[in-house]
């Protein structure tokens, strides 16, 4: 018999509204219309009488749910400020994050960086902000930083800030919080602003900032030249620092490249390293090719 995880994995793609997608917008006009219609009803009316005045006429019709997607919020959020009827709320808090407005800026204090990642975006959406925030495990040099903006590789021109409270505190200790600031001007923009904020990784957890080199300041191979050297050479540097290595094969395409998993026993010592990335604590990933590639720009 298949185990529970396997069955979940098989069934998740069957959901018409994916379990991973953010979705139904409680701040949207349809949700507000339904809310207004419901509370306008007397509580002691019969269901039939109430349903006669369902908000179809306000637009919650057959198209209302097209394109809606899911958001699995694990705990109730608390909205403060103006109500659903009286305009847009100005602050929101759930167990993961607390957001308030402050001088044309929304200030989001990350209460629990390890919370279900959907809770962060849910909080922004509740305030009418089309922001998708992911808090991802990263290598030490990227902790507390905005790791990507604009959905990975597409840059967007939005001044999103990140800082620690209190300043320069240690995020692995208690009483130290990440704070993200988002300009209120993005309110009402049609395209979602995606960004990723780095948090400390849990023991054994893989880093998700594995597009950033492991030779950046603050990383275990800081300042070491690796790009263009042989695998044997680079493994020497890796071993000297008490690290271990994994490998990924670089496949060059027109205009870019992809990396694929690669078993260590398939790699020759004379293969060429393109880049070394942080994989998880104590482990780096060597992105390699069997031969030097003209399509790759090796770092100096």
């Amino acid at each position, binding site marked *: 018999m*298949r185990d529970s995880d396997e*069955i979940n*994995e*098989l*069934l*998740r*793609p*069957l*959901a*018409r509204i994916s*379990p991973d997608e*953010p*979705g*139904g*917008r*409680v701040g949207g006009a349809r*949700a507000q219309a*339904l*809310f207004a219609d*419901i*509370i306008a009803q007397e*509580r*002691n009316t019969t*269901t039939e009488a*109430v*349903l006669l005045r*369902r*908000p179809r006429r306000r637009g*919650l*019709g057959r*198209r*209302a*749910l*097209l394109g*809606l*997607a*899911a*958001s*699995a*919020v*694990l*705990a*109730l959020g608390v*909205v403060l400020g103006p*109500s*659903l*009827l009286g305009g847009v709320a100005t602050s929101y808090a759930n167990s993961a994050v607390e957001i308030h407005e402050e001088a044309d800026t929304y200030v989001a204090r990350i209460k629990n960086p390890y919370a279900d990642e959907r809770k962060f975006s*849910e909080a922004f959406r*509740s305030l009418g902000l089309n922001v998708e925030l992911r808090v991802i495990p990263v290598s030490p040099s990227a902790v507390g930083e905005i790791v990507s903006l604009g959905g990975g*590789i597409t840059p967007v021109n939005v001044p999103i800030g990140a800082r620690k409270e209190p300043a320069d505190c240690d995020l692995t200790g208690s009483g130290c919080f990440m704070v993200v600031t988002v300009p209120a001007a993005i309110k009402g923009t049609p395209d979602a602003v995606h960004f990723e904020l780095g948090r400390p990784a849990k023991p054994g957890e893989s880093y998700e900032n594995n597009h950033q080199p492991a030779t950046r300041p603050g990383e275990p191979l800081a300042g070491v030249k690796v790009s263009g050297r042989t695998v044997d050479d680079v493994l020497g540097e890796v071993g000297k620092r008490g690290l271990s290595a994994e490998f*990924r094969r670089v496949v060059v395409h027109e*205009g*870019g*490249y*992809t*990396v*694929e*998993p690669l078993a260590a026993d398939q790699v020759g010592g004379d293969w060429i390293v393109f880049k070394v990335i942080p994989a998880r604590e104590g482990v780096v990933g060597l992105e390699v090719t069997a031969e030097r590639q003209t*399509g790759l*720009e090796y770092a100096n």
Partner: protein
Amino acid sequence: MSDDTHRFEAVYRATYDQITAYAGRRCDSPQDAADVVAETFVIVWRKIDELPPGAQARLWVYGVARNVLADHRRSALRRQARHRDLDAEMADLYGDLADHSVERNAIAQAFATLPEDDRELLALLAWEGLDRREIATMLGLSRNAVRIRLHRARRRLSRALEAADVRFTPTDAVVSTGRSL
């Protein structure tokens, strides 16, 4: 605004996304899903005095939605004789999954052969992300009963999948893709 309205607003805000998704995943047409969402929250409003505190509120609302959906399906069955063609057309417009892989269709067919209660249990885990304790609370069952029912549901699904010859392939075989130089 009264306390009742505040309580309703809080629970509405906290669960609207999830209930729309829950209904959308289970209704064959968007208008049915819209009806289920609207009716669910009308009942929550009428019964706001019964709303349990804290995290249980969400499970209670799920329970209301499940009952509304069950009622809706009973009346939908009666309507189906009249509107079968239209229903099918709407289902096509709305219900198609983006991915039509052979394997996924086979999984969907195997899943569809299960009894309704089995499907609901497995879906609450896989789609809504509820755990067993939450499912037990929502359905008003003991945790042990949920464990046993889930075990049976998984066994039935496994057999159906075997009959359809579905093999499990992990989806995360590739480490990373698509970086520009």
